[in-house]
């Protein structure tokens, strides 16, 4: 087990190195550089002199060749220094840190909601399999699954922020807090947070909800055909007990791998959704830093996401061995 872990970690480090290398080469190959996208630099009355530009390029490390600059970034990164953002003139870790909570505020509730709802729906669908109500639920989930989350988000905005504007169901269109947030009392502040969270959280939740519940149902269908379920029925156990104690516990094995694989989505959020809701999270940061060519921020985010992806895969494999005693890693 320890040998396997060490091998996985070493392989992960190699993968990490290659990913950062590829992304670094790519972003440096993008036309334009961070100096050209800075609005202050574009002011015709105050054009920086040739020397100023060269000085700034040296300060940003833009005068180095791509491999040289990559090694520079890498050695600093190993020491825990991710550089500072060109756009915000702050250390990358601070820039990312200020946005992590905003993204977690969306992804954690939606992940919990998705699991809490998907398990009962999946069990219900197996229990009523083939009946009219199960078919209705199945068709509904299938339709939901075919609507991309960004379209659902736009439709929700149209319904709750435009159509129901002025009624009791009115919800804010976008953003994370209202303009008059500072003047509110603490309970009003909490309500304000919640109101702004509802639409993004629904948009985040429902795609995974449709996917998870179909996933649970597919696995349950396989399990309920097994002999031990027939034995349990023959013993005279009730359907609920069979469903939960005998069938569902055996579908947990593929389910936990899903949990591990959803780890990167937790932090990555969704670039498109955060952009639609103008939510100041990591996805929006990623999008903006690509637009402004903010190399250190792009690299920091890529690194964080890749580490999480690799950790998620490792976690899934470990959990797999943990819940299924037939699997062992040597």
């Amino acid at each position, binding site marked *: 087990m320890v040998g396997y872990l060490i091998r996985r970690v070493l392989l992960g480090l190699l993968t990490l190195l290659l990913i950062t290398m590829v992304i670094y080469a790519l972003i440096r190959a993008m036309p334009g550089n961070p100096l050209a996208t800075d609005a202050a630099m574009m002011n015709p009355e105050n054009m920086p002199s040739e020397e100023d530009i060269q000085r700034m390029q040296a300060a940003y490390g833009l005068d180095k060749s791509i491999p040289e600059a990559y090694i520079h970034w890498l050695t600093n990164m190993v020491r825990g220094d991710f550089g500072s953002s060109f756009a915000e003139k702050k250390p990358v870790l601070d820039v990312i840190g200020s946005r992590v909570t905003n993204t977690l505020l969306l992804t954690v509730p939606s992940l919990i909601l998705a699991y809490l709802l998907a398990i009962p729906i999946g069990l219900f669908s197996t229990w009523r399999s083939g009946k009219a109500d199960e078919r209705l639920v199945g068709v509904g989930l299938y339709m939901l699954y075919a609507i991309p989350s960004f379209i659902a988000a736009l439709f929700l905005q149209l319904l709750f922020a435009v159509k129901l504007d002025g009624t009791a169901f009115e919800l804010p269109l976008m953003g994370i807090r209202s303009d008059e947030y500072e003047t509110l009392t603490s309970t009003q502040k909490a309500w304000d947070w919640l109101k702004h969270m509802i639409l993004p959280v629904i948009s985040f939740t429902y795609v995974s909800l449709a996917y998870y519940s179909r996933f649970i149902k597919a696995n349950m269908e396989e399990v309920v055909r097994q002999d031990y379920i027939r034995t349990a029925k023959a013993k005279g156990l009730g359907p609920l007990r069979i469903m939960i104690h005998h069938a569902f516990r055996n579908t947990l094995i593929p389910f936990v791998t899903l949990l591990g694989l959803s780890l990167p989505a937790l932090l990555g959020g969704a*670039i498109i959704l955060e952009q639609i809701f103008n939510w100041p999270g990591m996805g929006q940061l990623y999008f903006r830093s690509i637009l402004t060519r903010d190399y250190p921020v792009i690299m920091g985010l890529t690194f964080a996401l890749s580490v999480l992806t690799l950790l998620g895969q490792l976690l899934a494999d470990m959990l797999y061995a943990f819940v299924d005693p037939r699997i062992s890693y040597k």
Partner: protein
Amino acid sequence: MNQTNTTNESKKSPGFWRHAWLRFRRKKLSMCALIVVLCLSLIAVCSPMIAGTKPIVCKYKGNLYFPCMAYFNPDWENPIFQKDRFRKRYPKNLKEKDPESWAIWPLIFQDPYRPVRDNEWGDRPGNPFNGGKPSSLNLFGTSKGKDVLAMMVHGTRIALLVGFVSTGIAAAIGIVVGAIAGYFGGWIDIIISRIIELVMCIPSIVLILALIAVIEKPTIWHMMAILGFTSWTGMARLTRAEFLKLKESEFVAAARSIGAGPFRIMFRHILPNSLAPVMVPIVFGIAAAIKVEAGLSLLGFGAPPPNPSWGTILNAGMTNYTEWWQIVFPGIAIFITILAYNLIGEGLQEATDPRLADPKD
């Protein structure tokens, strides 16, 4: 002699794909989805004949022309119209410059690339620039003066092209890479599997955004290539697994014993037998490609305007939520297309899965 030949053929048992088709045909929903996709393809192919401001056929100064072909490729518009200074205004110019001329017009006189102005068609009023609600002239409303229905009709072409071309690229790369890894095994397999893992680890939207940013003037064709180059990993893994399994089978040994080379065995013998499980992710891949293209266009990262992609209309709609028709209609179109491909994929999955085969047929 002829007689025996025909009887022999009629007794021949149907092949795998014929079986699959027979089983697929029994699924009503999947067949409906197939019809929807065929209708969409028909709309895509006929888009200039459904909505446009250029005649389908016209007789001008004694010759027949097909100006509507310009919607497929601007170079296919006969230069005579440029020389005679039509400036894309056909109805009036045709009559003025040649009273003898006649023309067959598209069903809807609206252009996906520009607003129709006042009196361009008889004395019909032009498109409203702001707040162009759905009306009898603009069934789906207008987006910055352009007719949304015309944009959507021409957007069908983009959506289907994106789906087929990018998935085609992905499938070609995935199948070749997966086949090589699975068939040769050994260190080739180790290296290819590492590369696949590497590509899978990079969040695809980040890779796509970075690649698009690298291209200075991305066109819709660049988008398709990028989508193709970033979505082949799943198919490569599947093909590799199939090849690992099939390369040990008797028919491969037989082919090898009569002296067939590795590439002949791979693509003539193993590939046709491993195509069924690979076909299913290809169909789902088409739906995914359409979704990603719409999302990128929505972010403003798609092909530059004026391209009437469904996502571009959504992008315009996001700047003004009160003009709901710019969001609702393209949204529904994307939903229907993705749903149709998903249903076809599901039907194909069930039709080609030997475990679900009906022993009767």
